[in-house]
Each structure stands twice: as C-alpha cells, then as structure tokens.
C-alpha cells in the first residue's frame, strides 16, 4: 500500500481539480526507494496528517475560487444539491481512481448537507467535499486488493492507477478509467494501447523529468550551493535552467526523438536557456524557442553526462571531484556501487596544494592501499571529466597545466579499458550491456516504486531485458515492456514481501 508521493499528489490535484498551487512546502518529505521518491514503507505520523489537512484546505480554497470551471454542472440549472452530488461522484471517482462506494458517497454528502442546513454557502459545501476527498485513504494510498495464496491479476482500476502513476505521475484520466471499466486493461494489448497513448501525451513529460532528475541525482540542484567567489553567476535561476535542460532533453530524446538509450549518452543537441548559454560558451541568441534543441559543440558535449546539471550537481562547493562524478557513474549508470569506506577511515579528499591539478591531488590518496582498493575504481572514471569545472564549463587547462582527461574503466562486465575524456566515456557507456541492464533495473524500480526482488521478479526482469534488446535499446519500448510484465500486472500475495 504505497502512499502518493508529492509529485503524484500535486499532478493529480492539478489534473482533476485544475489547481496548480505550490505544495512543496506543505506536504511532508517523501521516503526514497533507492534514488526514487516512493512512500513505500514507513507509516504516517501526526505531522503528515496535519500536513495533509493543510494541503487539502489550501487546494480546496483555490478550487472553489474557480467554481465554474471546477463543477461539471450548472448549480442553477440542475439545482445545487444535485450538482454537488454529480461533482462528488465524478470528482471522487477521479481522485480515488475508482468509483465511490455507496457508504462513502452517503457519508460525504452528509457533510455537504449538514453544512448547507447550517446555513453555509454552496461553495463552502463543495469545499468540504474537496477536503474530505483529499484526506481520505482512498486518495492518499494506492490500495490494491490483497490476493490470498497465489498472485492475482490487478483489477482494471488498480492497473490503471499503476499505469497513470508510472507514466504521468498522476491519476488516470477519464479515457483510461473508461478503458478500465470496460475491461480493456486486463489484456496486454488493451493495456499497451493505453500505455502508448499516455506516453505520447504531454503529461508524460512529468514522469520523464522525475525519473531522470532522481536517477542522475541532479534533483539536489535547487538546494546546492557554490562558492560565490569562484562562481558568482550560480544562482537559483541558473540552477533551475540546468535542471530543466536535462529534464527537457531526456523527455525529448525518449518521447519525441529516436528513443534510444544511446542517444541519451551521445546526442549533443540540447535545451539551453538564460545564463546556461554562458556556461556552454555560446552567445545568447535574441530569441530562444523552448521547443527546439540548440546544437552544442560536439567536441565538448555528448549527452547527459556532459550537461551542466550532472557536472555541477556532482562537484563540491569550491572544486570538482573525480570521486563524486565517478561514484555516480558507477552507482547510477552501471549499477555497481562501490563498497562503503572501511571503518575508521577519514573519508575526505586530500587537501588541495597550490599549483597541483585535481588529478595530482586525488592521485595522492590512491597511494594509500586502504583507499586505493575502491578509489582505483571510481577515480579513473572521474578523471575523464577533467575538462569540466564546478559549473560544467569546458576548460583546457587547470592552473596553467593542460588538462589530462585520460581515464580508465575497471571491473565492469563489458567496457573495461582506458579512455580519454567524457565524450569517449559516454560513447563507451552508451553501448554497454551492463548499462542497458542497469537502465532496466532503474526504470523497473521507478515504475513499481520498490526495489526489485531477485527471485520473485526474475522472470519479469528477463522478459523486459529481452524486449529492450529486441528494440535495439529503445527506452520507450523498455517502458512498454515493463507495463507488459507480470510484475506490473499482477500482485503477489503479501507475506512480509514486496507488493
């Protein structure tokens, strides 16, 4: 029983009630499963419930502020009571992602009726309905019937909920609900038809942005600080431009472009705005079309890992770190997290010495054999990023010495060996089976909101990997293959295991 994450809550409220007020400071923080926001395990406390109460009140106030667009009927023509009931039935079904049960309808209407009987306005009555709907467990939790004994196929509404939450980070729309009620989602073909429609819809951009910013751990950008003496141009607007670039880029490649995983690592066109032009060393044009990607220098940029967001998020406050950049490549992209530092080790980079390059500085800690065992895996990957400073600007010399971006990949299944620079590294990663497998696990975990279970999910995982390969590693097809999998369509009986 997963609880909606903040993005799903906000998107649902926007799609169903037309309210797009910022809830980021109202809703409590999400739990994370791996890098992904998913409220899987820990129960709510008083603070969460208080926050849900405040959020519901805020949303309701905004919703009834535009009553005409909110209501599916004209209260004057149909009568206020009848219109309130229609609103409750229709909106309730969207928010609960299933039709209201009779007991619910009766109880909620009672709330409306007693307010009206007490002389309060129609709009107050509607507001109360919105507030109770948004605090009900049927809205806050994704509830799926618990099968007994054997795995069970999810009901139409249940799988529709999973589908919309995966591909839109929102609730099902009316068309998806109709398909669910019409029994079309119990077949793989019916489900795929809807999956293709959803991914092709602009709402899909939210999920693409959410996945990539969390997967690459660039969602930390808004909270990130940089040394103002070294990087005076780094402010909230630039940080947002960086994040938006990558979110937009990934969405464009996957949903509008060729969809291939290779392109994510090799495509040099991207979406540049504002002060980001300076970072990329390009003159800012008079007019920027936000829908058309700008060609970046192919000798400097190649896909996600050479974008300013990634390079900035994985640098320190005042200097770059081959360790940080190397670890993310290993952990997020190769799914090969290095082991934790041994106990009692001082987990800090060597202090800078004037006149020394970053590589020389970090080479020093690899002379210590306790550090070397792991750092010989991470640092040589990180060295490949030597051409990019703390904001991802391209540099050719560091403190007067020419940049040495030679690196080496070690310990992988299929792409070991020396390389030179992040462009060659990206190309190497873009064709790696280990990276392809890792991409499958990451998306799978994101789609289900839980970690994969090595035994229970083995068959599903195998099928998805095969489908990804057959599509020549097209991410769109990967998403559809996940939707088709048993892990997505069935629910296992619960016995202390994963849903």
């Amino acid at each position, binding site marked *: *029983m997963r*609880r909606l994450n903040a993005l799903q809550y906000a998107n649902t409220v926007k799609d169903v009630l037309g309210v797009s007020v910022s809830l980021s*400071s*109202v809703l*409590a*923080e*999400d*739990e*994370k*499963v*791996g890098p992904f*926001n998913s*409220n*899987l*395990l*820990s*129960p*709510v*406390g*008083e*603070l*969460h*419930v*208080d*926050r849900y*109460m*405040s959020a519901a009140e805020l949303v309701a106030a905004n919703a009834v502020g535009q009553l005409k667009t909110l209501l599916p009927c004209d209260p004057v023509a149909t009568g206020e009571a009848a219109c309130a009931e229609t609103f409750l039935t229709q909106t309730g079904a969207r928010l609960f992602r299933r039709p209201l049960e009779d*007991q*619910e309808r009766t*109880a*909620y209407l009672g*709330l409306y009726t*007693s307010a009206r009987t007490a002389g309060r306005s129609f709009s107050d009555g509607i507001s*109360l309905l919105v*507030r*109770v709907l948004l*605090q*009900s*467990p*049927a809205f806050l939790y994704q*509830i799926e019937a*618990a099968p007994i004994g054997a795995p069970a196929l999810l009901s139409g509404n249940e799988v529709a909920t999973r589908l919309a939450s995966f591909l839109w980070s929102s609730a099902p729309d009316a068309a998806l609900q109709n398909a669910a009620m019409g029994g079309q989602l119990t077949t793989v073909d019916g489900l795929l038809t809807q999956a293709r429609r959803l991914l092709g819809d602009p709402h899909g951009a939210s999920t693409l942005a959410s996945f990539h910013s969390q997967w690459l751990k660039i969602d930390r950008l808004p*909270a990130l*600080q940089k*040394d103002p003496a070294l990087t005076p141009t780094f402010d909230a607007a630039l940080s947002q431009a960086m994040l938006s670039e990558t979110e937009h880029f990934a969405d464009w490649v996957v949903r509008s472009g060729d969809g291939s995983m290779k392109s994510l690592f090799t495509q040099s066109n991207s979406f540049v705005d504002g002060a980001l032009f300076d970072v990329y060393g390009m003159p800012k044009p008079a007019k920027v079309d936000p829908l058309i990607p700008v060609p970046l220098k192919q000798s400097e940029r190649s896909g996600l890992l050479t974008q300013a967001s990634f390079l900035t998020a994985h640098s320190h*406050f*005042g200097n770059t770190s081959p360790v940080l950049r190397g670890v993310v490549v290993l952990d997020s992209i190769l799914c090969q*997290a*290095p082991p*934790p*530092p041994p*106990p*009692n080790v*001082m987990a*800090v980079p060597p*202090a800078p010495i004037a006149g020394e390059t970053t590589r020389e500085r970090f080479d020093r800690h690899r002379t210590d054999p306790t550090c070397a065992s792991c750092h010989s895996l991470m640092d040589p990957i990180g060295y490949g990023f030597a051409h990019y400073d703390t904001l991802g600007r391209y540099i050719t010399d560091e403190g007067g010495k020419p940049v040495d971006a030679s690196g080496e990949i070690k310990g992988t299944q299929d792409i070991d060996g020396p390389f030179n620079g992040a462009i060659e590294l990206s190309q190497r990663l873009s064709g790696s089976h280990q990276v392809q497998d890792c991409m499958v696990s990451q998306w799978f975990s994101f789609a289900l909101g839980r*970690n994969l279970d090595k035994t229970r999910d083995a068959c599903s995982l195998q099928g998805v990997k095969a489908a990804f390969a057959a599509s020549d590693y097209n991410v769109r097809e990967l998403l559809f293959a996940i939707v088709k999998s048993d892990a997505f369509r069935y629910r296992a009986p*619960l016995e*202390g295991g994963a*849903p």
Partner: protein
Amino acid sequence: MSAQRRSPAVSVARRKLLAGLAGSAVLAPFVPLLQAETLPGAPKRLILMFHPHGVIRDTWLPTGTVTNFTLSKTLEPLNAFKDKLLILDGLRLSAETTAGSDPALVGEPSGGPHTRNTSHLWSGAALDPNSSLFSRDATTFGWGLGTSIDQTIAQRIGTTAFRSLEVGVRPGGGNAPHNRMIYRAPGQPLSPEGNPKALFDRLFTGGMGGSALAEQLRQDRKSILDLVSADLQRLEPRVAREDSAKVQAHLDAIRAIETRLSSSAALCATPTAPADFDANANDSMPMVADLQIKLLASAIGCGLTNVASLQFDRNENSGTLFNWLFTETRAHHELSHLSDADALSKLTQIYTWYAKQLAALMTQLAAFPEGGGSALDNTLIVWCSEVANPQNHQTTNSPFVLAGGAGGALKMGRFLSYDNVQHNRLLVSLANLFGLDTVKTYGKTDVGSGPLTSFI
C-alpha cells in the same frame, strides 16, 4: 496516578485573561498557566537535542571533579547554567555491537556510521539489515528497529495536546534514516517540523482562537477527520497484514489531532506568526534556530507538550557552511574529518554555536515561572550527537550533556565520568526517572541491565 493527569478545563477563563496579552512582542515568553506544581518526585518534561558529527573532545571535556568542574571552550556558553548541567563522559553508542547472543546483531552494521548511529542514539537499536528499502554504497538497510526513548516516555506523560513534538532546524534531505532519529515504534520514524511558520500553525492555529472563523475551521476539521477515520476503519480488514500497521498509525495520528482539536488547550496568548521564508536555506539556519527554540519553549511553557525533540541539521554528511561563524568553503562534514589546527578551531566554533543554542533554549524555558522556579527546572534536556569523534566515527565517549532539571529528582551541577559504559544504561535511567520503574534494559543492542550507576 499522575500519568493520567489531564489539563483541567480552566482555559476559557484563562483565554480571556490572556487575550489582553495577545499583542505582546513576537514569541515573547508567556505566562505559565497550568500544572504549575511539580509532580512529586517525578520530572515533567523531556527534550532530546541532537546535532551531527560529534565534538572535538579536547575542547569539549570539562576538567575537575564531580561537583567542582570547569567547562571547556565548547561548553562555555552554558557557564551561566552550570548548576543546571549534568555532563556525562565515558558512555558509548554501540549500534555495531556483535556481542550478546542475538544472531540478528551479528553481521550488522548497515547504513554507514552516521546513519546507523542516528537511529541508534535514542532507541538503542540498529537499522533493519534485512530490508532493501535504502541503499548506501553496496549495502542495503531499512528503518531503525527500535522505539526512541522519548516516545516510550510519551506513553506515560504525553497527555497534552501534542503527545510529542518533533522540531527540526534544517533537518531536510528526504524522509530517510539519516534524517530521522525519533521512532514512535520500530520502523515508524516521525518527521521533524523544520519550518517555523508551519510549526507555529500546528501549535497555535486550528485548535485555538475564539473567532467564529477559527471555530468553524475547528469544527470542519473534526467532522472531516471523523469521516476519514471511518474510511480507515472500513479499509483495515481489507488490507494485507503488513499494511494494517499503516492504517493503524494513520488512525492513531488522527485520534491525536482530534484530541487536540477537542481540547480547550488555549493556554497562552497566541504569539504573532513568524514569516514564511526558505527555512532550508543554509544561511537561514541561525534565524530558524532562534524561532524554533522560541516556539518549542512556548509549547512546553504553555502546556501544549511534555515531550519534544530538537534536531539540528541532517545527520549524514552535513553540507552546512557556517558562514555566520567564519569564512570557509568546506562544509561541516568535510571539516569534521580533518585534524589540522585550522579545522579544529572551526569545528570548535561550530560545536560552541550548538552549545549556545542549548543555552538559548534554557534561557527561554527559564522565562516561564513554575512552582517556586521555572519550566527549566522541570524540563530535562538531553543533548548528544550520532558519533563522538567525527574524524574516525568513533562512538566511545559520546558527548552527553543533560540540562535543565527533572523536577528535583535528578541532582544537577555534576560532571560524571564512566568507564566505557553502554549508553543503553542512560536510556534505562531516563525511563526510570520518568516513572517507568520496571524498565531494566532498553533497545535491541543492550547487553547489560539496569540504570546508570551514581546517576540519581
């Protein structure tokens, strides 16, 4: 028994009385109202205070004897309150113990030293090694497997509008074990409130205030929560066993809020609301600390809660830059692993700043007269960190400072040295001190029994 004591319904008259004070300065201390008498032999309130990344022992450790000691640099801001301090040296956190016969303890630890000791500190338990919910480097782990001591004690004295209050000063970074130290039950972390405006709203609006609009809001909230409770109750039999704990916790939370909404808990004049600002920003930290301390002291002094915690910063790899103390590009965590003179001096300044925050909290509590003394005399603050020595994550000689008082039940003004004693003994002492006399062990990693010796 005293544990059942409830606020008498004195507050209507009181509210009227206090209405005249409503225009006083922002968050000025309020006149104390209720429970002015101290419970005989039992302390009234408990606050757990946390800051990350240990201390520098050389500049923290007092010198001298049990009753005649001198505070070192770090604790100097507490000099004015020396007779209200009880400093404990020689206690050890042992989330990593492999001693004892419980095979579940062997093979730990998970989660890295900062994270596992954060959930261990107040609960004496370790992170769930069998869960794959979180991963760090190549290890996986789940939530902590214990109940924190404040929550255990809240079962006895959490009879106020808020059973307990979790307050944070920039505790952000996701709902994950490295940000959570308070556990209502195993696997049930409680999130701290890090936004002063939101904390103010929780404390002082909704359930309070006499305006017709406020009363309407209160009634609406109650009606809605009633319906939501009914929904949850109908849901419970339909969900899987492991989900029913979630339904129960949700119901518990609603019940607590309903109690609060029903109580005539308007014990203080409502202070002016703090502004809404970015409470997560690095440089907001001193301002957030100031506001949260004042709000927390008000909540205690006004009888809104008897049990609270105050969490400074997040617990793993603090990225905080103490720009208001010195110029430095390395954040707290990075500094904390260094041992050169410059780093040590800056770290001492950081820890001294935290001691100042404790002094500020004590000052605020002391402003509420209570019985013959003040709320401070009846509030025991227990301050510690997740590691002792940040350079190597060592957890022996953890820097425990107890401050305030336990209503006379605990002799303050002392400096006690222990010889490598498990801190679970202190947790037992705290339980005993707050009336849970039968508690002999506390937490999953406890390999001993009984309270701290020479403590009471």
